[in-house]
């Protein structure tokens, strides 16, 4: 019988003693692990004025310092921001062009976003609200990297907006993506799906009829057509459109926006206001999941019948001669495995696992312990 007090070798060749798998694990997106953030709990995160010129944080009112999402408003022509009589670039133009350069292919960057007149469908959506050309207005809802983990979970999300003069739906505009029906469009930042009317991946109105935006799960970003949103939720007409948006103001619950560019109209707040719901119909919500790719390596630690049947455990022996404590074990020693240690080629113990209950081992038994290491 070979004597072995040293480590037992593992054949780390894939498929021998080692198998590597990657599992996609989905979970709730929100920081409090709730499945959705409802209108009554939605508020804005406190940010400095210099930041709020560009974007706002959407937070849970119970944890107002923790941003769950960021929302920004972009306008190709700089409307809704301060361009100082065209002497400077308006922050809304900066936002539009920032996202265009990030999300669009090089040949389309200067042309802008074609959301309402969706350029990924075979024909222009039949009920597109932009009559020609690109979308000049966009809203960008971006997720937090730490919350979305590896990517936003497509299909299993719902965004409900509500405001004044919601047409044609009854009170609420409910959006999801069409990944259940349509293949993704390849973009420089990964797959892209259309944002359409529906909920939890169930499409109510196809993108070929109307497209409200695009979702990029790999970077956790949603781009909405401002024109499509304002067609459904225009808000109070008249003077309020030309007012600086106030958080949760009933006069500013809608996507109708000004064509002025003399100051910051805080149009991104209109998106937040529509999430908080109208005063008559409080139904806005954000419901998302995240995805994480978990790589796990499984090692099959095989302990043959003749191995590991003795122990250095001080209770295993007795007396000055280190004899086996129990005479019944002489000739048939029995040990109990409680822990497995994995070592690298340098002899460093890099992982350890405990068994849930001790595993009996003797000369009449072999043991295979599958050690799963996830990282």
């Amino acid at each position, binding site marked *: 019988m070979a004597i072995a007090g040293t480590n037992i070798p593992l054949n780390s060749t894939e498929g021998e003693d080692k198998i590597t798998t990657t599992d996609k694990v989905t979970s709730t997106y929100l920081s409090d692990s709730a499945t959705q953030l409802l209108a009554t709990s939605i508020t804005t995160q406190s940010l400095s004025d210099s930041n709020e010129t560009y974007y706002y944080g959407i937070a849970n009112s119970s944890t107002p310092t923790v941003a769950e999402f960021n929302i920004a408003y972009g306008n190709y022509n700089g409307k809704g921001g301060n361009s100082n009589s065209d002497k400077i670039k308006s922050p809304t133009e900066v936002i539009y062009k920032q996202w265009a350069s990030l999300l669009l292919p090089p040949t389309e960057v200067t042309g802008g976003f074609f959301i309402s007149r969706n350029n990924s469908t075979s024909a222009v959506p039949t009920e597109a609200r932009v009559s020609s050309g690109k979308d000049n207005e966009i809203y960008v809802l971006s997720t937090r990297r730490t919350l979305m983990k590896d990517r936003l979970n497509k299909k299993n999300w719902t965004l409900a907006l509500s405001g004044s003069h919601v047409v044609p739906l009854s009170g609420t505009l409910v959006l999801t993506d069409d990944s259940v029906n349509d293949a993704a469009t390849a973009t420089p930042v990964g797959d892209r799906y259309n944002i359409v009317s529906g909920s939890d991946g169930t499409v109510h109105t196809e993108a070929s009829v109307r497209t409200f935006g695009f979702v990029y799960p790999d970077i956790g970003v949603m781009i909405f057509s401002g024109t499509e949103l304002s067609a459904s939720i225009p808000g109070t007409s008249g003077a309020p459109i030309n007012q600086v948006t106030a958080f949760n103001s009933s006069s500013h619950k809608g996507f109708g926006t000004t064509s002025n560019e003399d100051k910051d109209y805080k149009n991104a707040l209109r998106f937040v206001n529509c999430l908080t719901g109208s005063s008559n119909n409080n139904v806005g919500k954000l419901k998302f999941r995240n995805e994480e790719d978990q790589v796990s390596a499984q090692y099959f630690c095989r302990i043959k019948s003749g191995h590991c049947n003795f122990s250095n455990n001080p209770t295993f022996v007795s007396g000055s001669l280190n004899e086996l404590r129990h005479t019944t074990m002489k000739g048939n020693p029995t040990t109990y495995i409680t822990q497995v240690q994995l070592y690298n080629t340098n002899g460093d113990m890099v992982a350890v696992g*405990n068994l849930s209950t001790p595993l009996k081992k003797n000369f009449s038994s072999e043991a*295979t312990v599958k*050690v799963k290491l996830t990282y």
Partner: protein
Amino acid sequence: MGYLDGTSVTVDAVLTKKGRQILSKGGQLNISSFTVSDTGVDYTLWNTAHPSGSAFYGEAIENLPMLEASVHAEYSLRNRLVTLSQNSMAIPAIELSGLTTANKLTFEDGDSGGLKVVATLKGFANTGDSSGIYFVIQDPSIVRTNAKASRTLSGTTRTFLREQDIPNVQEYSVVGTGPDWNFSLIPDTELLKAGRQTNVYVVHKATGAYTSFTVVNNLTRLTRNTLSNSTKG
């Protein structure tokens, strides 16, 4: 016909701090071997008087609920299961001589030249294995040795390594068929502060037999050699 109890047990492992450190530096784990231990098992619970018979001798041990693994895995790695011939009646043991008291080697003023320790393997008939022993000094800044340094460690010894000592832990080896292996330990003479302690673990490579002792460095003054005689004028 009932289902057979599977012999494969699935264990969720956690990375040790060393494992995390390797990954954080962009390294690969390169897992190539494993050991099993019975930490937490007390064999005095093996009940040969169990009324239901020998199949139930280990009932108390088998029903033991186990604790979750700790990333400080070194703390719980107390024992290791070893492989010996089936008819072995005793577990090989290492006996140390040269210690000043039981399980302790204390350096006093005048011992700055070092002390010799002899490790003797008991209860094992060697069949020619010459891999010898290795010993681990937890903190080589307290005591050093003339033995051959083999590697730095992160917790492969039979007992825990203090976390803050991990970067310092050093393993040394002494080869030979034995059963006696000698090595000298030399106290640090740089930081003369009495009472500094560290542990030394001695392990026989082939059998896994091990023991440990504490080293106390009580040196308060150096015994310097005279480099030259005084001269007149």
